[in-house]
């Protein structure tokens, strides 16, 4: 990041530490979604999701490189050095998690007929990963994930959306859902049952009275 002449040292540090924060947040978020995607790739035997995991894994390498440089630039004294080395350790852990996710999707290279047992094992995990389709009867269509508050409403987090042939991974909250979208979700078994009913149009998405009205 280029610095303007005359900029005060503390302003520089603030800028640097802000970017450290953003980078760390992004690494943490990626490390969480990448593991879910890796399991989803195994469960649904999807090379496409597997390829996304590999892509995210590469992005993590870049992020780690950037955060290392930013952290070094932000170091002014011993205390900074000690605290920032702790921060870098967390960044390394996030990268290690994404490497593990990369190793998990490598299982896709094994002969397919020998692998279904993994699907059965993963189906019984405490947190479930499931696939469901948004029907044209569902009132979820044409509304955004944020507007619906999907996760706080049902406990299910949408980790990927397939629309036609295209996949959107870790979709933004502003993503509008459409009829025909295939969702890969993660959460509880009964949350999944609930969400499945909304997605199928068998139940109406709950509406709450506006605050103050």
């Amino acid at each position: 990041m280029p610095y303007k002449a005359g900029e005060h040292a503390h302003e520089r540090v603030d800028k640097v530490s802000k970017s450290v924060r953003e980078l760390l947040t992004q690494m943490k978020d990626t490390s969480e979604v990448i593991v879910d995607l890796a399991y989803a790739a195994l469960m649904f035997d999807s090379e496409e999701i597997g390829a996304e995991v590999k892509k995210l894994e590469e992005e993590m390498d870049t992020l780690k490189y950037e955060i290392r440089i930013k952290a070094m630039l932000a170091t002014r004294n011993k205390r900074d050095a000690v605290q920032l080395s702790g921060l870098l350790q967390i960044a390394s852990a996030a990268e290690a998690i994404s490497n593990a996710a990369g190793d998990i999707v490598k299982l896709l290279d094994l002969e397919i007929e020998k692998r279904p047992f993994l699907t059965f094992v993963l189906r019984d995990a405490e947190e479930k990963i499931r696939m469901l389709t948004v029907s044209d009867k569902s009132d979820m269509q044409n509304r955004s994930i944020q507007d619906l508050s999907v996760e706080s409403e049902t406990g299910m987090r949408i980790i990927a959306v397939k629309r036609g042939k295209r996949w959107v991974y870790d979709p933004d909250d502003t993503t509008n859902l459409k009829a025909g979208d295939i969702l890969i979700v993660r959460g509880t078994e009964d949350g999944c049952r609930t969400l499945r009913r909304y997605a199928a149009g068998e139940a109406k998405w709950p509406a709450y009275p506006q605050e103050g009205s």
Partner: protein
Amino acid sequence: MDSLDEMLLEVKDTSELMIDLAYSSLLYSNRDIAEEVFSMEETVDEMVTQIQNEAINKVLEDRNVPKALAIVRLSTALEEISDAAMMIADVVLRELQPHPVIQLSLRESEVIITTAQVQEESILVNRTLGDVKLATQSGMWVIAIKRDRRYIYGPDEFTTIAAGDVLFARGPKDGEAYFKDIASGAVRV
């Protein structure tokens, strides 16, 4: 599912819980939770060794090499995740407080960690987690409960909640307010 599959599943669930606990220990600079992550890591190591032993022994009987290979590789990846959790928790056990940016960053994350104390008037009191379906209702997943000085890590659907419990939960930011209201008794549905 045979016992090998069950162990594999247990290691998977534990590795995920460890990551959540490690971030919680950081957010609250909580050494108890950090130390629990360390002890879970030892358990995971032992289980992974046992899983790999059994998988290899099984190959001698059924000759299903790809299956054994898949089990060995998956369990190794799970061990890497649990090691990463330990690396995160390790930062809490250092002599200096974690860098303030870490906590800010955890609060800005897509998945946040929060706590709430269960009050007498809360509908959660004397009910099990399975019964109240907190994760389904609010998106907040309870990862630990502090009761007096003791902790219950990775509570399950049969765990009963008591007044005074401090719940540690993980979930979406917009589920936090409801979670806190349910615990405080402000919301009773």
